[in-house]
């Protein structure tokens, strides 16, 4: 408790030595606020303008990018959601139908039909 109080008092009371304080005061007096140069304001406004233009172009670029991304999403959605069986009969048919379509001669073979039936 006593230690804590001592630390707090130390914290409150630490001032810089008079020598350093005086040195800082002389430093402050030796360095008055400088007069801004004549082109301070024009330069500042040209920096503001160039930053504003950059922000504006970046904004426009970002908007364009978003538009292109939305358009691509829509195109891809339409492409993937379109009824797929219309593109190829393989997507709408069963496995056997596809097999039959691939081997039309097998289906006509009576021997093979018989052996399948007996199975």
């Amino acid at each position, binding site marked *: 408790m006593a230690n804590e109080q001592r630390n707090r008092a*130390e914290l409150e009371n630490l001032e810089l030595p008079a020598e350093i304080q005086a040195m800082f005061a002389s430093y402050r007096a030796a360095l008055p606020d400088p007069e801004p140069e004549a082109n*301070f304001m024009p330069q500042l406004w040209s920096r503001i303008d160039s930053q504003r233009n950059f922000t504006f172009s970046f904004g426009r670029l970002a908007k364009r990018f978003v538009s292109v991304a939305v358009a691509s999403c829509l195109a891809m959605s339409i492409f993937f959601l379109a009824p797929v069986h219309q593109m190829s009969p393989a997507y709408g048919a069963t496995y056997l139908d596809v097999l039959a379509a691939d081997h039309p001669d097998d289906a006509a073979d009576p021997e093979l039909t018989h052996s399948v039936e007996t199975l």
Partner: protein
Amino acid sequence: MLVDFELIESARSGNDAAFNQVVLAYRKRILGTISRLIGRPEDVEDVGQEVFLRLYFSLDQLRTPEVFEPWLYRLTVNAAYDYLRRQKRRHESRMSDLSEQQVMMADAVAGGKVSKEELRRTNLKEFVDSLLDSVSEEDRVLLTLKEVEGLSLKELEQVYQVNENALKVRLFRARQRVIKAFGSLTETSAKLRGVD
């Protein structure tokens, strides 16, 4: 406050003429603070413009015009930090610049072009700059704002957005470090004078 709240409000709502007036009112004070924070007169205008550039693009985030000044100081401190960090990376070139300046000053003294008062001021500036260079950027900025600029604890609390106790601890440590640095710097210069 150097300007009315209405003017700040107007600048905040996007009025460029009002912003121009705000800059005209504060630029000298801000340039003075920057010159003492960074200690490089040739870069003061550049850092000052950076402060007002940041002000222009962030003015709409200011909650109320009442906190405008601490907020402007905060922007100044941040721009000074950024500058000092960049400078730290270019430390070697800076050292060569300094020695060049010293050589020029020595030539001017030898040629009788510099008065004693000017020489005393230059020496004082160099000593304080070396003293502040020997502590961290955080300590340098805090000590400059408190001891050189004379900001109160209340103002510093608003600039740093920390509570009083945290600020006192920071200040206590910064003062301890600068006292230590002052001791070793005066010792070194005394030794150098002894050698001369």
